């Protein structure tokens, strides 16, 4: 758990950290489209260069980064293996047994999938490593604003999201504390058969839910006492500003897009 980087925030001060969170969210989203546009080796080389450049600009050490996403490698390898073994016939057939074919087509496809997975995971890890959770929430809320026109309660969703994010570490501490207390009373977590393990979760889950309900009640009363009525009609303290460096990232993105469109085999 402690070595798992995906979804964590690493406080550093780089140009990537200072970018507007709205910008980073949109870039990450568009980057995924870019990854699926690439369809030959040259275009992947361009993408890898851009990705490594982004990681370098974030001043996070590449070795630390790669170690952090290593736990996800099994998921990737599983997908790649499926692609490799069960591809439809096409090109040269290297090996054949029952319904399993390893074909030239399959090998190339598996290679593409591997790189696509890796690139997308690296970029989204970079997003969470370089952006504070609250900034992600503010950015998302701001990006969802147009949805107001189709009656989506954007402000309420934004409030829920920021409260949820705020309480993730608190509830994790709480869970750890309750687990320790129950261990001290003789509960063995993660031992024995499946049924026994599931049963041992009860002394953790019941208090955790109770504590979450109590917290929710206390928090809602405290919010009302501070004059909260509804999510609309509120002003904003966290103002996001679009800077020149944000525009520059889009220029770079446009260059990347153009290069990939040029290299792409239609």
């Amino acid at each position, binding site marked *: 758990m*402690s*070595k798992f980087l995906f979804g964590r925030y690493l406080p550093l001060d780089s140009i990537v950290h200072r970018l507007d969170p709205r910008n980073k969210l949109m870039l990450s989203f568009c980057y995924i489209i870019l990854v699926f546009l690439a369809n030959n080796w040259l275009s992947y080389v361009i993408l890898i260069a851009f990705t490594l450049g982004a990681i370098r600009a974030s001043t996070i050490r590449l070795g*630390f980064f790669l170690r952090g996403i290593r736990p996800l490698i099994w998921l990737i390898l599983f997908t790649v293996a499926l692609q490799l073994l069960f591809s439809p016939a096409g090109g040269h057939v290297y090996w054949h047994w029952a319904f399993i074919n390893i074909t030239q087509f399959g090998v190339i496809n598996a290679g593409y999938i591997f790189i696509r997975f890796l690139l997308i995971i690296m970029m989204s890890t970079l997003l969470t490593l370089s952006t504070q959770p609250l900034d992600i929430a503010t950015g998302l809320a701001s990006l969802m604003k147009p949805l107001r026109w189709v009656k989506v309660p954007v402000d309420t969703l934004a409030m829920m999201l920021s409260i949820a994010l705020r309480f993730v570490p608190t509830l994790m501490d*709480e869970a750890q*504390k*309750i687990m*320790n*207390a*129950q*261990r*001290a*009373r*003789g*509960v*063995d977590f993660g031992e024995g058969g499946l049924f026994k393990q599931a049963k041992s979760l*009860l*002394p953790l889950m*019941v*208090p955790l839910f*109770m*504590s979450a309900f109590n917290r929710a009640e206390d928090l809602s009363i405290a919010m009302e006492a501070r004059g909260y009525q509804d999510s609309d009609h509120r002003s904003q303290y966290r103002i996001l500003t679009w800077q020149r460096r944000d525009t520059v990232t889009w220029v770079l993105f446009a260059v990347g897009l153009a290069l990939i469109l040029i290299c792409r085999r239609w």
Partner: protein
Amino acid sequence: MAITFEHVGYTYQADTPLATPALDDVSLTVPDHGYLAVIGHTGSGKSTLIQQLNALLKPTTGQLTVDEFTITPTTTNADLKPLRQHVGMVFQFPESQLFEETIQKDIAFGPQNFGMAEADALALADQTLTQVGLDASYAQRSPFELSGGQMRRVAIAGVLAMHPQVLVLDEPTAGLDPQGRQEMMALFDRLHREQGMTIVLVTHQMEDVAQYAEQVAVMRQGKLVKAGTPQEIFGDPDWLRANQLDVPRAAQFAQDLTAHGVTWPQGLPLTASALADQLAAQWPKGGAAHV
């Protein structure tokens, strides 16, 4: 010796960029049937220290012995179950550990985990319930309908029901009203004196330390900076204040009286009754002069 720490060190998330040292070379001994109070500023490593006692955290360096159990960095979880029964832990705000449908079942949960038959455990639960000051009518109620103070008593009963030889208390009276506080502290004192339980208490209440503890350990930034009897620790109020700690109110008042010429032949009194005794012993001489 009941509890011996030998050069114990502990680092959270060791071998990662987020590693934080919490204990540094702590050596300390608590005799059989001892009563140790651990004091120190918030974040000084008190809670980390006491979690070593039932191996919820295992030392990253050094070793400790609790009666017949030895805990080293390589101790495996398989050997720990008897230790967990031997050392009862009452965590901060233990009311958050309640989960069963009835209070009786919740108290019986610990003993049952250590292999006691259900009927015996339930009978034991009823006994323990009266011990912490709630009557038998509570046994079949849900723990979630109680007040905060009553929930605390049930949680403590759940630990006492395991009949531990060593009782570790992490701020057991934080957030209780004065009467509840006194009752709980008196209960722990009774267990200590009558059943010979070894008690380790973490607290910010210097009055409790002065009144009950036989031994005090002062922690600062993960290090054990001073250990001794309450008399030795509180005898130097200036040093304590320099370490952002305080002296008991009685000792404070006695020290203020020193400035007005009162002397303390039996040492600085730490509790109100010791203060009263010493004043009473000196009273007739001075009092007679004014009559």
